[in-house]
């Protein structure tokens, strides 16, 4: 059984495809059980963690999860909070209680805090079963973006942009001397010395996310890029 | 109405239906012929409290170029807002269109009307048969009621006199050449129970339904699967047989 499963690891499966016929394993994310078998629910690569079988999807829109950091755009200012577009099927709500500052609504116009069109880096505080998403700014990472730039990639590629224990994103940050905030919803903000190179690196990751040796490729790109930069300065 | 849904599914597990009928049992069918004097043929069909009127009007027109010696059949359905709080004014929605097209297919494909006999001058003039279906009360299973009303109306249609120029609607003598009697039977699946003639409540609960039109010789002329679930081959075969059986019973009415 072990050998059989080894072969299955990282195998590309389509929805409805049987991954394994066994009661010894549990269906994890993007999988389901029917009878004795575990099937893929989404297109993606099989991933096995102990007894849990899941599928790492290759495509799909962002579905908010509690604890995710997301980049959102203020869509509407309401009397006691903000409606935020987080590029998900559901709009998110940032209540007044979700921000750090104390605001007296009788004296301060909420649009002075966050106005329509502004971008924020927020944490998903809760996702209720009936699809209402609440945001919070109570996290040291949270902020409002006043400058810099944004790119959007498919949210399923975000884990690769971050890398194991943040290895990939730290590689990009240090070699480009750029500040980067990654939203799980596929939105990435960055600002610094070499923004063009950051954009290139992220696009490379998105395009080749399922290929081997991605870290090496990115690191090569970054090396070549920063050299070119120095030459220009000389 | 989750509660009612669960109740009906629980009942279905015991093989019972909400109104006490058996799975293979239709509600009471009442047929009234020629209810509308001005129409060339008409019928009112009641299945339980579902009520449908079909009227046939005829006119002379040009044949289709690919069938120059055949009459023309046009079927239309109106879901008037009087019949259900769910019906809205405006052009026919997808349900009304589907119903009309399924009824049309049953009549057309079975060869119920001898279309060649409706030719007046080949390539120039043929009889056009308009079947208009009007829903008076929607209490479920509109398709079977509409199909039955349409065929009954055709059965009692008299062709008006035509002198080559004008249609004389005051004088109708010749019966429409109706050679077959297609009957449409709809079976719905609720839980694991198959029920013919689903009523309104059952239509809300059913996962899938299959509408099968059969002829007196047992041939199948039209099939339409509807609803957000699938059916196994065995289930389809079972429903086919049931449709033929119920079709024969209804044809005798």
């Amino acid at each position, binding site marked *: 059984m072990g050998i059989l499963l080894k072969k299955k690891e990282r195998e590309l499966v389509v929805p409805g495809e049987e991954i394994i016929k066994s009661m010894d394993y549990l269906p994890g994310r993007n999988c389901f059980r029917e009878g004795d078998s575990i099937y893929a629910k989404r297109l993606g690569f099989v991933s096995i963690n102990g007894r849990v079988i899941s599928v790492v999807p290759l495509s799909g829109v962002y579905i908010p999860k509690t604890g995710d950091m997301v980049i959102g755009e203020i869509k509407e200012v309401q009397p006691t909070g903000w409606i935020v577009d987080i590029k998900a099927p559901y709009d998110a709500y940032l209540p007044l209680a979700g921000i750090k500052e104390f605001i007296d609504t009788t004296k301060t116009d909420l649009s002075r805090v966050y106005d329509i069109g502004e971008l924020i880096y927020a944490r998903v505080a809760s996702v209720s079963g009936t699809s209402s998403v609440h945001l919070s700014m109570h996290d040291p990472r949270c902020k409002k973006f006043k400058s810099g730039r944004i790119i959007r990639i498919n949210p399923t590629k975000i884990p690769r942009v971050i890398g194991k224990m943040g290895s990939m994103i730290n590689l990009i940050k240090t070699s480009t001397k750029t500040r980067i905030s990654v939203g799980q919803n596929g939105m990435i903000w960055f600002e610094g010395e070499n923004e063009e190179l950051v954009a290139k690196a992220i696009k490379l990751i998105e395009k080749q996310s*399922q290929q081997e040796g991605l870290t090496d490729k990115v690191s090569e790109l970054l090396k070549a890029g920063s050299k070119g930069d120095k030459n220009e300065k000389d | 109405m989750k509660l009612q849904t669960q109740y009906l599914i629980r009942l279905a597990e015991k093989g019972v239906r909400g109104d006490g009928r058996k799975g293979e049992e239709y509600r009471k069918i009442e047929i009234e012929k020629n209810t509308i004097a001005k129409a060339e043929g008409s019928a009112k069909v009641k299945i339980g409290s579902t009520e449908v009127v079909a009227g046939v009007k005829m006119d002379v027109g040009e044949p289709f170029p690919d069938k120059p010696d055949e009459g023309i059949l046009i079927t239309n359905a109106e879901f008037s807002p009087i019949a259900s709080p769910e019906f809205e004014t405006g052009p026919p929605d997808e349900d009304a*269109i589907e119903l009309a097209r399924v009824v049309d297919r049953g009549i057309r494909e079975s060869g119920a009307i001898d279309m060649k006999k409706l030719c007046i001058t080949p390539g120039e003039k043929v009889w056009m048969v308009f079947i208009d279906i009007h829903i008076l009360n929607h209490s479920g299973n509109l398709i079977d009621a509409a199909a039955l009303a349409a065929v009954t109306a055709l059965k009692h249609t008299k062709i008006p006199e035509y002198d080559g120029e004008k249609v004389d609607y005051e004088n109708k003598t010749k019966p429409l050449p109706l050679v077959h009697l297609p009957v449409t039977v709809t079976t719905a699946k609720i839980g694991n129970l198959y029920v013919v003639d689903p009523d309104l409540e059952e239509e809300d609960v059913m996962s899938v339904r299959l509408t099968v039109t059969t002829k007196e010789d047992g*041939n199948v002329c039209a099939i339409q*699967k509807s609803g957000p679930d699938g*059916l196994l081959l065995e289930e389809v075969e079972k429903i086919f047989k049931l449709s033929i059986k119920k079709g024969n019973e209804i044809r005798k009415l």
Partner: protein
Amino acid sequence: MKRIDGRKEDELRPIVMKAGVIEQADGSAFVKFGNTSAIAAVYGPRSLHPKHLQIPDKALLRTVYSMAPFSTTERVKPGPSRRSIEISKVTRYALEPAVFLEEFPKTGIEVYIDIIEADAGTRTAGINAASIALADAGIPMRDLVAAVAVGKINNNYIVDLCGKEEEQTLCDMPVAYMPRTKQITLLQMDGDITLDDATKLIKLAIKKCEEIYEIQKQALKKRWMG
């Protein structure tokens, strides 16, 4: 029996299937059976407006089938027709059993199917494309949906009718099928055939759907394996 285009009775037309053909869409596919071509695009799950359309406990699957004006000999008038409205509806019911709609309450998943070239079997080509596009969009599904039309000419059961055959056939029966769950999700027929014919034709369609399913699977895998 030799068929009009030289095929065997149970032979499909040359098939092309490709996933991921529209960059802007969340998922997309191109499907070609002989001279019938369909493109499908999927958008969503995304927020659904107007609000009264939202379903509290599941996503709304919307399907729109339309034929390009130049797809047939006689120009197709643009905009929905009675035929296209009915096909849109049966297509929705053909796909819906495959999709875990309950995972995205209140949202909409939209499937657009454009027929670019029509030589019979457009609804089934559209369903094949839509099913690939849904999977390509990362939508959770129970299975892929494969579809084909079958018919009967001179006592012969034939598959994947072309336009000329559609004029001769005793019946035209489009079938959609989920090979894993063995469920028939689209079943229509017009014609005049015996019960035995009908059953045999469905069985034949199922067999061919299993073949088509393998091609759909390959199209999806090819996109991501390069």
